[in-house]
């Protein structure tokens, strides 16, 4: 039963904006102690898509401070600049254009337009508007959104490269709060659905993948763990396990027991 043919599956690869990825775990680079810890966690995660933020350069302070881009080799990772901290359309579009200049014409971006500091929930009307502008401007937009299936579809129709519903508030670690909405979003979608935000531990990641999500983007769940590289490794396995379970198709739930050993042949 352990031959390649029975355990390997014909899984379709994750394709985002025409590029194929082996890993379904996308990770952020925020909240780590230092660049060493970041590198160790990224290595352990096996992630190929890595988010970064765009911020002012410190003028006149620590000119020799190591730059994040120097530890993220372009041949190893696909960089995903985000618009974190943007609360309106203008800020988000401006940040994406700066990212494109910074990364030499790079078109893949993570759009998030936040609505409120307490929840960090997306401002949906601003998100839709910014997505339209960015798609028309030639960006490949991976968009952070709420777990509303209708909005997810609208973002797909606008031309977003991937739709990324939250599982719970950013940085909350509360897990998949609304699995049925995530399931509906997945079932309706023709673009990759990546759960973005809210995962707290490996079982949360497995649950999202068992729902049929194409991948998961996380930052705090790894960076705020006691041992970030070990949690990164756990997430990698949970995502692989959850994906295989989704493809394998789970057994139906039953209310009562069903003996695993045959009744026939009992000798008493």
């Amino acid at each position: 039963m352990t031959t390649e043919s029975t355990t390997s599956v014909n899984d379709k690869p994750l394709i985002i904006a025409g590029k194929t990825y082996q890993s379904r775990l996308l990770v952020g680079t925020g909240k780590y102690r230092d660049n060493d810890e970041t590198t160790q966690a990224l290595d352990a995660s096996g992630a190929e898509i890595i988010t970064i933020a765009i911020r002012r350069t410190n003028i006149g302070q620590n000119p020799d401070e190591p730059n994040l881009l120097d530890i993220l080799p372009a041949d190893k990772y696909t960089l995903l600049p985000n618009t974190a901290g943007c609360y309106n359309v203008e800020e988000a579009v401006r940040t994406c254009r700066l990212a494109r200049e910074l990364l030499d014409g790079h078109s893949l971006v993570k759009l998030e337009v936040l609505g409120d500091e307490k929840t960090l929930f997306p401002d949906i009307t601003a998100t839709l508007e910014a997505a339209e502008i960015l798609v028309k401007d030639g960006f490949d937009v991976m968009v952070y959104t709420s777990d509303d299936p209708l909005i997810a579809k609208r973002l797909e129709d606008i031309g977003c490269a991937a739709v990324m519903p939250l599982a719970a508030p950013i940085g909350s670690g509360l897990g998949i709060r609304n699995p049925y909405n995530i399931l509906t979003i997945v079932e309706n979608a023709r673009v990759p659905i990546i759960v973005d935000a809210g995962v707290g531990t490996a079982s949360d990641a497995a649950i999202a993948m068992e729902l049929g999500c194409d991948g998961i983007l996380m930052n705090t769940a790894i960076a705020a763990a006691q041992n970030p590289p070990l949690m990164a490794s756990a997430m990698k396995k949970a995502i692989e396990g959850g994906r295989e379970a989704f493809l394998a198709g789970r057994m139906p739930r039953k209310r009562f027991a069903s003996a695993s050993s045959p009744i026939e042949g009992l000798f008493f």
Partner: protein
Amino acid sequence: MNITINGEQRTLDDGLNLQQLIAMLDLENKRLAIEVNQEIIPRSEHASYTLKQDDKVEIVQAIGGG
């Protein structure tokens, strides 16, 4: 002339171009993107872009984020 760089007021020599400003700030060969008055100035134009009084310059880089 007075210009604002990343929110800080600076007094600089007239006629300074963006490439010279980057050198002055010890930011040569760093991965950066630059806006002047909210308009991106591509790297290829830094040497030919002359700063003027009251320009607002934003110099950004990549940092860790999720």
